């Protein structure tokens, strides 16, 4: 199983950390604030 072979540990970890940081950056800077803005706008434009 390649995940348990010691030659690939650092490679696995590096890829995982890079992927995680990219996801967190995109989500916190773009996706989640956009979503929040959409929901707050919907609350504000509702008359009732």
């Amino acid at each position, binding site marked *: 199983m390649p995940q348990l*072979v010691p030659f690939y540990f650092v490679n696995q970890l590096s890829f995982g950390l890079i992927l995680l940081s990219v996801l967190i950056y995109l989500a916190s800077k773009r996706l989640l604030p956009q979503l929040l803005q959409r929901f707050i706008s919907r609350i504000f434009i509702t008359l009732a």
Partner: protein
Amino acid sequence: MALLGRRSFPTPIVKPLAPFIICASLVLYTVNKIENAAQSVPPYDTDPRNPKALLNKKLKEQHH
């Protein structure tokens, strides 16, 4: 920074995630140490994927 015509929001990233970034770098360092230790012990020391396989083989032959 605008990507695809959409703006990005000024969310703080480094300050709240600083402990996790420090921990991740410590884990990376530790895993590197573990990897080096595991690669220098049989059966992985003479594995063809190991860049030091030939060197380890030579050293073993010299000892025996």
